[in-house]
């Protein structure tokens, strides 16, 4: 019966881990021990077969797709490391510094609505827009058919969370989280404007008007 040392010797001989002197000594033992020699030969055959049938390199299925998927993941990693846009989420967006320019725009638009609409007309028309910040752009779109004017504000920055939304003739606001919109009510208790977001996450201001009595 072999000793553990002999097992280790066989292993080290097989794997080429012996010094020249150790190898010579072990091979002389092999020559005089037929059982050890038979086992050594079997181990050698097994090693050779393992190397033959377990290639160190294999063709990767769909190799180009393999690479492109990795590139996609790397790009995703990079995107995740970038800071989240400040306007993420409705309430975060509401905290944007849109009050100053928006209030100004709102005031303008409401002023127009209150005073500029032709008698008997349900439309509100924006004649001019003033935005105090040069970084903010405001545009308006009017649709007589839809009986609505849309004001769009772009380039807004962060604002303190405790800033309240105010404006001339605005008495209160209501936030509807479900539809991510804030409604502004006038002095007569009726809704005069709705703020929401467009598909690009930009603020959208919808003003509505009712026939003035």
């Amino acid at each position: 019966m072999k000793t553990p040392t002999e097992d280790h010797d066989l292993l080290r001989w097989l794997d080429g881990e012996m010094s020249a002197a150790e190898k010579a000594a072990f091979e002389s033992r092999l020559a005089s021990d037929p059982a050890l020699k038979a086992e050594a030969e079997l181990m050698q055959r097994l090693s050779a077969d393992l190397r033959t049938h377990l290639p160190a390199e294999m063709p990767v299925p769909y190799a180009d797709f393999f690479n492109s998927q990795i590139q996609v993941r790397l790009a995703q990693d990079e995107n995740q490391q970038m800071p989240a846009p400040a306007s993420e989420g409705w309430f975060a967006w509401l905290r944007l510094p849109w009050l100053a320019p928006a209030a100004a725009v709102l005031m303008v638009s409401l002023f127009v609505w209150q005073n500029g609409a032709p008698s008997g007309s349900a439309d509100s028309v924006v004649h001019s827009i003033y935005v105090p910040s040069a970084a903010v752009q405001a545009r308006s779109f009017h649709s007589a058919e839809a009986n609505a004017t849309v004001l769009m504000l772009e380039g807004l920055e962060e604002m303190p969370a405790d800033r309240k939304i105010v404006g001339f003739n605005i008495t209160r606001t209501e936030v509807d989280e479900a539809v991510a919109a804030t409604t502004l009510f006038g002095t007569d208790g009726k809704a005069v404007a709705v703020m929401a977001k467009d598909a690009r996450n930009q603020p959208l201001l919808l003003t509505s008007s009712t026939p003035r009595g």
Partner: protein
Amino acid sequence: MPAPTAPDPGEVLDIDLVKRSQAGDTRAFDMLVSRYRGRIYAMTYHMIQNETEAWDLAQEAFIKAWRALPRFKMDSAFYTWLYRITHNVVYDWLRKKKIQGDGEFDDSHTEHRVAAGAEAVPRGDAAPDVALKNAELGARIQQAIAKLSPEHKQVILLREVEGMAYEEIAATVPCSLGTVMSRLFYARKKLQELLKDCYENTD
């Protein structure tokens, strides 16, 4: 471990691609992926013997390597470093699979066919009966490897497929030299036992 195939003249060296990758050049990293994907995929395939999972794990290894690249000090060959990452990825996967109760490397693994394109038979124009015998032996070897525990499978693959010396295996696993030798010995004995009939009737 045998050095990766020497680069062709004019081929960009690993070290240059690594430096560019560390600077955020994903195209350079893509070249490293192309260079080593075959070896990494072979390693993952031999360990788990499932083409789809091996493909995914090989990808995961490259992605982890990309994330770890800023910490790679180039104190070893890129492939050696990448291989260790791959080894950890596969080993974690095997551990999780074991915890999830998929069986202790059950025999179902042995039902997998050899991956398409795998070199299941030696190159050359062997006679049909010899080729068939070789293919059968290849399949039997895959089945036998699948029956080893992850620890034994790992050392036998590091030794026989990657050609690592004992010290390299010990550093990769990591474990002591004595553990490497005892695992190698046990793995070979177990393989002999599992493949006994293949060797009994041939000379």
